[in-house]
């Protein structure tokens, strides 16, 4: 894929020799959809306006095109989230799992589709909902999404995605001046093992 990107970028450069932003949304869409599975470790810092220190959490996650998202927070308390197109489940250690379904909460799920679009860089949906700026330096790209439509523009100031071969950081700036910084490291793309498949159940 990197090669493809380089070729694409070179072609673009040849075609428009003055163009500095070699990477396009199309390229990112391809890049994001390249892998069936992505595993990564994450750290999240949530800066709440008015609080002295951020809420820091860490864990690991798996995104599978087929099965959805599995997100396991390990610190500061154990919590697992599972999500696919039909169902969301949250499980805090020592408590019963909480299930939210598409039938019960259609709006939440409509919203999820939009967010899935962000992580798959779905061009059509993103362009409808956001003003998009893409910048690139040394193959490191930054995509800034500024919501154009309600309700997104009432919640977010901007969502900034950053990465190279994979999505590496996400910064969410919201209207209440809270900020979330997510960092993904240790990306792996091998096929899901049987044990891993069970995690999505």
């Amino acid at each position: 894929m990197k090669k493809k990107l380089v070729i694409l970028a070179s072609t673009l450069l040849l075609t428009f020799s003055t163009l500095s932003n070699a990477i396009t949304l199309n390229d990112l869409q391809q890049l994001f959809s390249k892998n069936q599975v992505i595993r990564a470790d994450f750290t999240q810092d949530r800066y709440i306006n008015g609080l002295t220190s951020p809420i820091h959490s860490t864990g690991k996650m798996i995104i599978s095109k087929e099965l959805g998202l599995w997100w396991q927070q390990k610190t500061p308390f154990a919590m697992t989230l599972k999500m696919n197109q039909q169902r969301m489940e949250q499980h805090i250690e020592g408590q019963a799992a909480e299930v939210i379904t598409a039938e019960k909460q259609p709006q939440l799920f409509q919203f999820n589709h939009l967010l899935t679009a962000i992580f798959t860089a779905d061009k059509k949906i993103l362009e409808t909902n956001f003003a998009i700026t893409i910048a690139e330096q040394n193959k490191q790209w930054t995509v800034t999404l500024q919501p154009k439509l309600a309700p997104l523009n009432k919640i977010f100031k901007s969502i900034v995605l950053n990465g190279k071969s994979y999505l590496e950081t996400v910064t969410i700036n919201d209207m209440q001046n809270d900020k979330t910084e997510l960092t993904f490291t240790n990306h792996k793309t091998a096929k899901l093992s049987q044990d891993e498949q069970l995690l999505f159940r």
Partner: protein
Amino acid sequence: MKKYLNLTFLLLSLLISACSSQPKSEAWLTKEIKVNLPKIDLNQDYHDQQLLTFKYNNQENSVITVVEIKNNQLKVMGLSTIGIRLFEIQYNGSEVKAKQYIFIKQFPPPEQVLSDIMLSILPTTSWQNVLPPNWQLMDKGLFRTLINDQKQTIINITYNKKVSTEIRKPIKIDHAIFGYQITIKSME
């Protein structure tokens, strides 16, 4: 991703627009007994970040709370388990300011959370001034108990440390009258 949920809850916060209220600085100890909240007169600041699990009618709900006392001003911020603002309460010793961003079913009103937190962290002497006649708030070992004039236990608070000059951080609050239990896990 986790963000999906983050964002969906943010969407919820839009659907249920933030509402502000300025309740009096009062707390219900039972269904009939209401008291004024005591003034905060501490010679130390306090900070705790905790996962608070509220259990009522066999249902459990968790929130993250951040409790800060600075110069005797108390601030409690409630966040969902994935970090979305739910409520914010400020108490300056005479006035409570509460802001609720998202309403959660099965969770006590912010003012109730505030009084439970104050019952747990203020010295018993602060409370003794505002309690009804013959009510008592007593520290014994790892426990603090609120007893009414009939010697019935109203609230029982558990700590993991014995009484000292440091403010103790509670790990469990049982409300015998309202029938709820709050378990508190420090996130620090």
